[in-house]
């Protein structure tokens, strides 16, 4: 294993130190229990929007903390959910009296740890609501699985709900909006090569040089199928078709298209893939109204991409366009 690290045991803490130094105007890093908090927290009277999850998906979530988006992020160890005391600390530091909305990706560990924290906070009379995002169409949602995973749609959810909280929506309104986003967003990813978790030291899965894994999760969980690698047209079609069929997205729908790199796929290829996806959507009469292209929900140095499509309406579009100032997303004023 070759990595720019000193010690696998301190990777997350060491990286958070750099994040804080790079973005001291936006975030404060609390070292133990680890929480990335908006520099001006708590914002009085505003719903605190809190997320978190395993590290290794940067810039999600620490790079998404700041005005217009998250109030706090709880970084777990690499690919491992944070613990309840991190979430509790995040709630304490950011609660401005209007309660907290927890944005949780649907993994057993994340759900159980956030659930435990929410119970503890409620016992102290803090209003807490939770939204679980499960946008990955690669997993069949059935009684026989832990349900669909939360992947790329999480960034869109955090941006939109963060904007609503910033404009003063109360907790119930933020929760209802979050549920609306979850109901209208779908994603799917693929990988060409596996990442290596620092404390594991070996690639998370084995993929031959001429193979690809379609339907991969952001922790390198194997997906729907292992297939011979295809060209960009083939790859984009394999991701986009199940995404569109699932909601389903229809002719005339207005959407946000998010083309995400899993970490190692360069922007050269990502824009190439994005262009293909835009063309395929146009061919179906689906109107791409907003787009996001880049590495936002990564899986360490996994080589691959994901596509996320969110059905927009005027309110969602307005909230997407609202000002945001975080390490990774910044626009408006």
């Amino acid at each position: 294993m070759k990595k720019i690290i000193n010690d696998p045991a301190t990777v997350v803490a060491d990286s958070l130190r750099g994040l804080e130094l790079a973005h001291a105007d936006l975030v404060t890093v609390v070292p133990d229990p680890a929480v990335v908090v908006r520099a001006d927290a708590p914002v009085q009277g505003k719903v605190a929007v809190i997320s978190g999850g395993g590290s290794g998906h940067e810039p999600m979530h620490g790079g998404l903390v700041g005005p217009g988006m998250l109030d706090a992020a709880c970084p777990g160890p690499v690919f491992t959910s944070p613990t309840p005391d991190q979430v509790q600390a995040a709630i304490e530091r950011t609660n401005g009296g209007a309660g907290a909305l927890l944005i949780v990706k649907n993994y057993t560990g994340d759900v159980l740890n956030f659930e435990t924290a929410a119970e503890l906070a409620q016992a102290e009379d803090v209003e807490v609501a939770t939204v679980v995002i499960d946008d990955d169409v690669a997993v069949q949602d059935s009684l026989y699985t832990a349900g669909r995973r939360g992947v790329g749609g999480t960034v869109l959810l955090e941006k939109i709900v963060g904007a609503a909280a910033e404009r003063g929506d109360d907790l119930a309104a933020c929760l209802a909006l979050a549920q609306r986003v979850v109901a209208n967003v779908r994603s799917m990813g693929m990988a060409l090569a596996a990442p290596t978790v620092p404390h594991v030291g070996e690639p998370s899965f084995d993929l031959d040089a001429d193979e690809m894994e379609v339907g991969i999760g952001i922790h390198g969980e194997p997906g729907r199928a292992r297939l011979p690698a295809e060209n960009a047209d083939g790859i984009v079609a394999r991701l986009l078709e199940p995404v569109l069929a699932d909601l389903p997205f229809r002719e005339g729908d207005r959407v946000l298209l998010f083309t995400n790199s899993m970490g190692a796929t360069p922007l050269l290829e990502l824009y190439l893939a994005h262009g293909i996806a835009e063309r395929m959507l146009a061919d179906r009469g689906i109107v791409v109204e907003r787009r996001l292209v880049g590495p936002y929900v990564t899986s360490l140095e996994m080589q691959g991409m994901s596509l996320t499509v969110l059905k927009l309406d005027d309110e969602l579009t307005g909230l997407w366009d609202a000002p945001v100032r975080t390490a990774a997303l910044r626009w408006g004023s």
Partner: protein
Amino acid sequence: MACTAESVADAVRAAAAVVASHRDELVALDRAIGDGDHGENLNRGFTAVVAALDEGTPDTPAAVLKLVASTLISKVGGAAGPLYGTAFLRASAVVKDAAELGPAEVVAALEAALGGVVARGKAEVGDKTMVDALSPAVEAARSADSVSELLTAAAEAARAGAESTEPLVARKGRASYLGERSAGHVDPGARSTALILGSFAAGPVR
């Protein structure tokens, strides 16, 4: 013979040692059908548990179990953190302020632990989780009459239960994403449960 706070603490230390020496095996099992962190997570948690016990053993078995629970909940993360944490917390609650645990209390503690895992994780036997090791262990413990006998019986049943997960298709946790491809591997959480119960049986608990 019964176990005191001191012997419960020793048992937990034995569990920490076995988790440490099997860290890589648990990582490898989780790498096959999960995300490769189970051994690391548990080792981090039990290392912190030992550090907490080094500061002084709490007075009662229940207090030891509660310390283990809160440490695991705050240090392990993942699915296993809240599940093992809840297991120890429920075990602590059920033995109340008994100064020593006899067979009846140990069985009650194991039953409560299983109840806690099921309440949090909603898994059933056959879902390919730690419940597949813990549930038969509780069953086996009921039919023994000394603490050491029942821990041996529980450990053996847990070991067999963990092995029985190999052909199963996972229905809970990360491994369920694999569907049919999860068959052919032992569940890491079932294996760690068997290891921990094994260490209780082999350890200094009398």
